[in-house]
C-alpha cells in the first residue's frame, strides 16, 4: 500500500475516532457526570503522579485504576485497551526494545543470547535493561490511557469551556475552537479529493503520481483555506461577534466533584503507601 493510501486511511480513521469518542462522551457513565474542570484537575494529578513515580508497581496500579474508571464510564474495555496497546509497540515498543540488551543497558544478565569469550562478543538481556524498557512502556501507556480517558468522556466543547473557566488565554480558546472546526472541513476536502482521484485510477499510484497528488492537494487545500477564512469570519460578524467569545454557563460543581478530587488524592497516596512497604 502506498503511503498516500495509508495516510488517507489514517485521516478517515481520525474522523471516525472523533465521531466515536463523541458518542461515548454522551453516555451516562461515571466520568461523563463529572464537571470537566474536576476531570482536568484529577487528570493532571494522576498524570503527574505517574510521571514522577520511580516505582513500576505504582504505575501499573494506576493503570488498573484507569481500567476501573473506564469500566464504570461505559467504555468498552476491549476498545480502551486495544486503542493504546495496538499502536504502542510500533512506536514506543521499537524504541524500548534495544534498551533491554547489555550493550545499551549494562547490568545483571537475565538471558544470555550470544556468549563468545574469544572475540569478546556477548549479548544478553539484562535485568536493568528489562526494567528500563518496562518503565518506558508502562509510563507511556498509562499516560496515553489517561489522555484517552479524558477525551473519550468529555465532549470537546465542554473541555474547551472548562479551559476557559480555568483562565486559559482567550485568544488560544478562540483559535482552538475555530481550528478544530476547520480541521473537519479540511479533512473532508482531502478525503473527497483523494477518493475522487482514486476512483479514476486503476491499480496503484506510481511515485510520480503520488508526488503530484500531494502537490495539487496542498494547492487546493490552501485555496479552500483562504476562501473559508474570509467568509467564516464574516458569518461570525453577521451574527454579532465582536472578537469576544461568550459561552453559556452550564457548569456546576456537585458533591460528586468534591469527592472525586478527594478520591484521586486518596488513590495516589494509598498506592504509594502500599508500594512503599514492599
Amino acid at each position: 500500500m502506498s503511503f498516500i493510501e495509508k495516510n488517507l486511511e489514517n485521516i478517515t480513521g481520525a474522523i471516525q475516532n472523533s465521531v466515536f469518542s463523541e458518542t461515548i462522551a454522551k453516555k451516562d457513565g461515571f466520568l461523563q457526570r463529572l464537571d470537566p474542570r474536576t476531570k482536568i484537575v484529577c487528570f493532571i494529578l494522576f498524570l503527574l503522579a505517574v510521571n514522577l513515580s520511580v516505582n513500576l508497581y505504582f504505575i501499573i496500579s494506576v493503570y488498573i485504576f484507569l481500567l476501573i474508571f473506564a469500566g464504570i464510564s461505559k467504555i468498552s474495555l476491549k476498545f480502551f485497551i486495544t486503542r493504546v496497546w495496538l499502536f504502542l509497540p510500533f512506536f514506543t515498543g521499537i524504541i524500548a526494545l534495544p534498551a533491554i540488551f547489555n550493550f545499551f543497558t549494562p547490568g545483571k544478565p537475565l538471558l544470555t543470547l550470544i556468549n563468545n569469550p574469544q572475540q569478546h562478543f556477548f549479548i544478553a538481556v539484562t535485568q536493568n535493561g528489562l526494567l528500563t524498557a518496562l518503565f518506558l512502556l508502562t509510563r507511556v501507556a498509562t499516560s496515553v490511557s489517561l489522555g484517552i480517558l479524558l477525551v473519550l468522556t468529555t465532549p470537546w466543547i465542554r473541555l474547551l469551556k472548562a479551559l476557559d473557566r480555568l483562565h486559559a488565554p482567550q485568544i488560544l480558546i478562540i483559535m482552538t475552537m475555530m481550528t478544530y472546526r476547520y480541521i473537519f472541513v479540511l479533512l473532508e476536502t482531502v478525503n473527497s479529493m483523494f477518493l475522487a482521484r482514486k476512483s479514476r485510477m486503476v491499480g496503484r499510484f506510481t511515485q510520480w503520481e503520488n508526488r503530484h497528488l500531494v502537490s495539487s492537494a496542498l494547492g487546493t487545500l490552501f485555496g479552500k483555506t483562504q476562501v473559508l477564512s474570509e467568509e467564516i469570519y464574516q458569518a461570525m460578524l453577521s451574527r454579532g461577534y465582536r472578537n469576544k467569545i461568550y459561552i453559556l454557563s452550564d457548569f456546576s460543581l456537585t458533591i460528586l466533584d468534591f469527592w472525586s478530587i478527594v478520591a484521586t488524592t486518596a488513590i495516589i497516596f494509598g498506592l504509594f503507601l502500599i508500594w512503599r512497604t514492599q
Partner: protein
Amino acid sequence: MHIPDGYLSPTTSFTLYTVCTPFLMKASREAKKKLDSKTIPLISLFSALSFLIMMFNVPLPGGTTGHAVGTVISSIILGPWIGMLTTTVALIIQALFFGDGGILTLGANIFNMAIVMALAGYAIFRFLAGWKKETGWKIVSAAVAGYIAINLAALLAAVELGIQPIIFRSITGQPLYFPYGLTVSIPAMMLGHLTLAGLAEAFVTGLTLSWIYRTNPSLITPDKKVAKSGRFFPLAIVIIFLLILLTPLGLLTPGTAWGEWSRQQLSELGLGYIPAGFDRWTGLWSAPFSGYNFSVLGNSFLGYLFSGFLGVFIVVSVVYLLFKVFKLKNK
C-alpha cells in the same frame, strides 16, 4: 517528532513550559493586535493546515515515520509570532482533543516545533530571500528555510530526549524515562529528518509559497520589508544558538540538584519508592551528573532557582531584542 508523555521527566517538561511562556505571551499579544482584521480566522486555518500536515506521515528508514510541521510557511506568510501560534494551536488540539502527543510534554513540543521552527525558519527565509528579487529564488529560500528549521527542531527534540538518561536514573541505575543518551538519540532523530522529513518540510513550504505567488500574491509581505534583512540574520543565528544552549544548560547544570530535590519532595509527598537502606546507597552512587548528595541540596536548589531566573532573563531579553529589530525594520 512529537515527544509523548512518559519520555521526558516532569522536570524537563516543566522547564520547557516555562521557556515557552514569554514567547507565547508575546505571540498572543501580536495576534490580539490584529483581531480587528480577518486575521483570526486566517490564523486558525493555518493551524488547521498545520494539523493536517502533521498527520501526513512519511515512512522513515528503520520502521518509524516522520512528518512535516508547516510552521515555516505560516511564519513566512503571517510573521514568526503568529506563525508559532498556529502550530501551537495545532499541537494543543492534537494533545488535548485527539489524545495524540503528550500533555506534560506539550511545552517541549511547542518549543521545538512551534517556537524554534518559526523564529529560525523566518530568519533564514528573510536572510536568503533578501538576496534576489525573483519569485523562483524566494521559493527556493522558503524551501531551504523549511529544511533547516525542521532539522533544528529535530535536533532540539533529540537533545531533550538524550539528556534524560544522564539526569534521571533510579537508585539501581536504570534510566527512568527515555533510555538512550545523546550519542544514540541525535543520530537516530537526525537520520530521518536530514533526509525524508526535512525534504517533506522543504516541499510543503516551497510548494505552498509558489502556490500563493501564483494565486494570491497579496498575502505575501511586500519586498520592501524583506529587502534589508542582512542585519537581522546574524542576530537571529545568535538567538537560535542561545536557545539551543539554553535547553540543556537549564537542565544539566542544576539538573542534579533538581532531580534530587524532586525525589526528596516525592518522598515527602509520599510518591516515590524509597527503599529502607536508602542512606547507604547515596554514598555509593556517584554518576557524573547525578550527585545524589542531600547535604548540598539547599545550595543547589538556590543555584537552580538562580539559573532558572537567568534563563528567563535571557529569554526575555532575546524576545525584547528581536522585537526591537522587527520594529526598526517596519519603519
